[in-house]
C-alpha cells in the first residue's frame, strides 16, 4: 500500500481521542497496541459502513467476505504508520476504498466494462429505472448500479450515500472539492431519476 499517497491532501486532522492513542503509544514505544487500538476504534465507528462499502464492490457473499477480510487486514496494517494528520474516518475509508479498488482491478477480467457517471447521466432518462417501493429490490438495483461505476465514481457514490460531505470525499479520493461537488450533483440527478420519482408515481 502506498502509505505516502495516503498522507497527502489531508485537511482535517484526527480528533482528540485518536491523537491521544497515537501520542500515548508513540511515547511508550509500543507499536502493536497503537495499531490494535486504532483498528478497534475504527471498526467500532465505521465497521457497518465498511461492510456496506464492500457490498458496493462485490455482489457475491462469499467473495465479499474475502474482500471484507482484506479490507480489515489492510486497515490493521495501515495503522502502523497512522500519525493523526488525517482524521480516522478519512484514513479508514481511503484504505478501504484503495483495497477494494485493487480487488476490483484483480477481478476486472471477469467483469464487464465499467461506466462513468457522465455516461449514466446521458442515459438516465431512458426509463429503465422505474422506481420500486420494495426495499430489497431497490437495494439490489442500487447496488448493481454502483457496481457498474468506474472505481473513482464508485468511491464518490458510496461516500455520498454514507452522508459524507464534499470536503471529506475530496480527502478520500484526492479530487478537488469543486470536482467532487460537480460529481455529487450528477449523482443526485441520476439517483433522482432512478430512485426518487414520487412526483410521477405517488
Amino acid at each position, binding site marked *: 500500500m502506498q502509505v505516502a499517497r495516503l498522507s497527502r491532501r489531508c485537511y482535517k486532522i484526527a480528533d482528540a481521542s485518536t491523537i491521544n492513542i497515537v501520542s500515548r503509544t508513540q511515547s511508550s514505544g509500543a507499536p502493536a497496541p497503537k495499531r490494535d487500538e486504532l483498528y478497534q476504534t475504527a471498526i467500532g465507528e465505521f465497521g457497518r459502513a465498511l461492510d*456496506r462499502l464492500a457490498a458496493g464492490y462485490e455482489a457475491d457473499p462469499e467473495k465479499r467476505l474475502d474482500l471484507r477480510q482484506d479490507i480489515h487486514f489492510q486497515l490493521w496494517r495501515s495503522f502502523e504508520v497512522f500519525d493523526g494528520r488525517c482524521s480516522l474516518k478519512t484514513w479508514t475509508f481511503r484504505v478501504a476504498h484503495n483495497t477494494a479498488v485493487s480487488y476490483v482491478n484483480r477481478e476486472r477480467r471477469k467483469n464487464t466494462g465499467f461506466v462513468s457517471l457522465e455516461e449514466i447521466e446521458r442515459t438516465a432518462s431512458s426509463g429503465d429505472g422505474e*422506481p420500486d417501493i420494495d426495499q430489497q429490490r431497490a437495494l439490489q438495483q442500487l447496488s448493481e448500479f454502483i457496481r457498474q461505476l468506474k472505481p473513482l465514481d464508485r468511491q464518490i457514490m458510496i461516500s455520498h450515500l454514507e*452522508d459524507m460531505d464534499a470536503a471529506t470525499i475530496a480527502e478520500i479520493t484526492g479530487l478537488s472539492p469543486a470536482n467532487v461537488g460537480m460529481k455529487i450533483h450528477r449523482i443526485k440527478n441520476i439517483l433522482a431519476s432512478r430512485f*426518487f420519482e*414520487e412526483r410521477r408515481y405517488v
Partner: protein
Amino acid sequence: MSDQTRAKDPGAIWKNQPEEGRAVNLEQIVKRRTEGFDSSTRSEILMSIGAALLFTGIMAWRLTPARDRMLQVGFGAAIVWAALSVYRFRRRIWGRAARPDAIAATGLDYYRKELEQRRDHLRRAWLWHGPLFLACMVLIAILTGNTFSGYQPLRNVLPLVILLAAWTGFGFWRRRGQAKELQREIDEM
C-alpha cells in the same frame, strides 16, 4: 420527509441494508494468511523437487544408451541434492508441530514470524530450485557435447532447454520480488 419518500431515498436504502451474516475476525484473517504461506511454501518445494526428479528420470531413461559419465554423475548429484532438500525441508513438507515459543505467541506475532520464514524461504530459492537447475545444466552440457560428436542434434531439444532455463530464471526473479515485498511488510510491522 414522509415514510414513503424515505423508503425511496437511496441514502436510506443504502444505509438500511441488512447486516452481513458473518463477522470479520482479524485473528482468523491472520491465521488464514499464515496457513496460506505454509501451504505455498510446501507446494513450491514439492513441485520443484518433483519436477527435478521427473526431469532427471525421463532424461536418464532417454539418454541411457549413451552411458555418458557426465550424465550419470550429474543426474546422481541432482537426485542427492533433491533428497537433501527433502530432508532439510521435511518439517515444511509434512507439516510441523508448533514451536514451543510460537504456542504462546499472539496470532500477530506468529504471523510476523511466518513472514520472516517465508521471506527466508524465498531468498533461499536456489536451495530447492537447485536440483532442477542442475539437471537442466547437465542436460545442456551433455547435449552440447553430443551434438559436436554427431550423436544427437542439439536443435531438437533446444526449445525445451530454453523454456526450462527461462522458467527457472523467471522463478528466481519472481521469488526475489516476493521476498522484497515481504520484507517491506515486515518493516511496516
